[in-house]
């Protein structure tokens, strides 16, 4: 009997609750994000700030897991007609989201429909380019952007007799430094690299102004083909393979897996996101610093900008969504891009500021004097001239492409194949994926 009453109560509850919602009458905005831990708290803080700043809508941030999990969840929700209003999507998902047609409302369109002006030029060039259409209209809103940098262990450098104030700037210098670190037994592992595909191929392509794929890395059309098996890439990968053989480089897994190697003081040089700063500051029991990514001057004496990583915010469509809700989304995006919010987000998280005003405000607040080195990623992102090779990537199913790179590199590290064979194989497998993607979105 008791169970029956409970069930009846459960059945009635939604109906009983409805009038309460109707009374509140504030449209609710659902914002799915992939920021865990301290970063998630920052997102919550921004949303609370937004809710307090206006009375029209109420935004609810929801943590949905990792980036790929958030993407999968958003897709499943869209298919069920339950897409969130706003979703945070990692940069390599941009190609897929652009092909999502009616599932998303691109920012320029949102801005046009709601009358809330979201000015593309307010965003920093290197960040904006990744998320814009070829004519400069914004497809999604930049949110958390980082770039990769070289982190190095000052204590290990000192121990090896290297000048801690002069980090290696070219790849040749990196190789030399690693050999010295090894010879002087200054540390267990001279060098490692997180996000191998992003740092060693994608960033390398951008900074050296060499095409990663045809059609301006995919910005000019779906018929793009991968190009990262050309001489400069092969040379770079064989250098790393050689270093692995002589023991100066250690491959320690995919994505962020190698990061603990540096943070624990096992590796002297590590390549990873600039947003790793918070974790390093918390965990490292040694002196450390960040430096520009090394380059090869014989390929490009004037290195270009590096590209970003991170994620942007996409406005999604669902049946029965009202103009008021879209307006709420637009004002939330505008709020996030305001200088105070952007500057605080940047300073609290280690991501770069995404707006020029946010950057200038941080300068005015004296943040870069207070915490030296935090503007290094920004300098690297805005270095040189943005070319079609350094604008970013617009390739479909790019997470899969990165996995293919990992697999082929892992085979090469084990000595099962050489650098040329690894990259050839990655390119031909990757091209198949791109053709598949092309077919699936052409319909």
């Amino acid at each position, binding site marked *: 009997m008791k169970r029956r009453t409970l069930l009846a109560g459960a059945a009635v509850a939604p109906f009983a609750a409805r009038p309460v919602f109707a009374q509140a009458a504030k449209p609710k905005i659902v914002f799915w994000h992939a920021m865990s831990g301290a970063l998630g708290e920052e997102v919550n803080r921004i949303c609370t700030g937004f809710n307090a700043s206006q009375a029209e809508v109420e935004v609810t941030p929801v943590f949905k897991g990792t980036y790929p999990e958030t993407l999968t969840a958003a897709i499943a929700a869209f298919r069920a007609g339950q897409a969130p209003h706003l979703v945070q999507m990692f940069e390599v998902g941009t190609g897929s989201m652009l092909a999502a047609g009616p599932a998303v409302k691109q920012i320029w369109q949102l801005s046009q429909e709601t009358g809330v002006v979201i000015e593309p030029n307010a965003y920093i060039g290197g960040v904006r380019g990744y998320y814009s259409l070829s004519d400069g209209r914004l497809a999604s809103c930049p949110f958390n952007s980082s770039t990769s940098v070289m982190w190095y262990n000052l204590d290990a450098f000192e121990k090896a007799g290297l000048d801690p104030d002069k980090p290696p700037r070219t790849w040749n210098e990196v190789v030399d430094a690693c050999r010295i670190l090894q010879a002087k037994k200054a540390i267990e592992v001279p060098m490692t690299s997180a996000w191998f595909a992003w740092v060693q191929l994608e960033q390398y392509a951008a900074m050296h102004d060499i095409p990663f794929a045809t059609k301006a890395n995919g910005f000019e059309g779906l018929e793009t083909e991968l190009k990262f098996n050309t001489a400069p890439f092969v040379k770079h990968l064989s250098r790393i393979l050689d270093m692995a053989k002589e023991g100066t480089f250690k491959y320690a897994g995919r994505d962020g*897996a190698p990061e603990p190697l540096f943070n624990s003081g096992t590796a002297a040089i590590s390549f990873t996101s600039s947003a790793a700063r918070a974790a390093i500051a918390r965990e490292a029991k040694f002196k450390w610093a960040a430096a520009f990514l090394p380059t090869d001057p014989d390929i490009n004496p004037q290195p270009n900008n590096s590209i970003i990583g991170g994620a942007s915010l996409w406005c999604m469509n669902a049946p029965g969504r009202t103009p008021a809700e879209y307006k709420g989304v637009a004002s939330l995006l505008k709020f996030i891009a305001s200088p105070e919010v952007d500057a605080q987000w940047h300073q609290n998280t280690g991501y770069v500021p995404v707006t020029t005003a946010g950057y200038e405000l941080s300068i005015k607040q004296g943040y870069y004097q207070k915490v030296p080195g935090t503007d290094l990623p920004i300098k690297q992102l805005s270095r040189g001239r943005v070319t079609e090779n350094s604008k970013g990537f617009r390739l479909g199913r790019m997470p899969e492409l990165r996995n293919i790179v990992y697999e082929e590199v*892992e085979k090469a*590290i084990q000595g099962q194949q050489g650098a040329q064979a690894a990259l050839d194989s990655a390119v031909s*497998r990757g091209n198949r994926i791109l053709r598949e993607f092309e077919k699936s979105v052409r319909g």
Partner: protein
Amino acid sequence: MLPVALVLPQLLLTFFFFLWPAGQAVWASFTRQDPFGIRTQFVGFENFTDLFEDPLYVESMGRTVVFSGSVTVVAMLVALCLALFADREIRGRNIYRTLLIWPYAVAPAISAVLWILLLHPQIGAFSHVLRMLGIGWDYKINSTQAMLVVVLASAWKQVSYNFIFFLAGLQSIPRSVIEAARMDGARGWRRLRTITLPLLAPTTFFLLIVNFVYSAFDTFGTIQALTQGGPGKATETLMVKVYRDGVVNLNLGSSSAQSVVLMVAIIALTVVQSRFLNRKNAE
């Protein structure tokens, strides 16, 4: 009417949680879709022909057979040995048995974490010992070691299950037969080979199928947590590939086709098993 009403909940469950999703997978395996499901084309058997023309898929099939075979052999041998010992009259037998059943209750992800703590190239306790012995242990960049790790971790989880069945099987062997053999002077190994193992055959065959099915279809959690199918594709079994292509790469057509292939395989295995057991029972 009453029988129908009584079976109805089970039928509904089967329909909603098996037939419907399976039907969806079969349908999706004949289509090409973009992830958002905006454009869906019917492509006939293209997903299937693509699969079997893909050398990587064929490799993955071979790898799954090797992996499942190894897990089955390791898990069953270890369980058999333990069961043989536990079947004896020893002190604290019940504690011993209970402890051996424990791992079965451990969730795959948790068991994987335990193995990571033991075997992680940098922080693992066991790998520290291996390094001191001069063995270059790093399953993240060594295919053979990676395979070894996933086989061990998967087999470990299955040992308990096999142990219970072997022990029950051993206990159902009539004591009189064993006593008779003993009186005829058959010693340990001979008794095992000529009496115990033949009488255990039905159990062994049942476990063989169950273990193979377990290791082919139910080890995804362990592998995903330990190696994610790497290094290279060294530990990417068919199940890992279904997940990778469907959930991560959002290639729903191909992933569904792979699921359908697996479904056919599992149906075939089940038919073999029930045929065999029926024949046994009929004898």
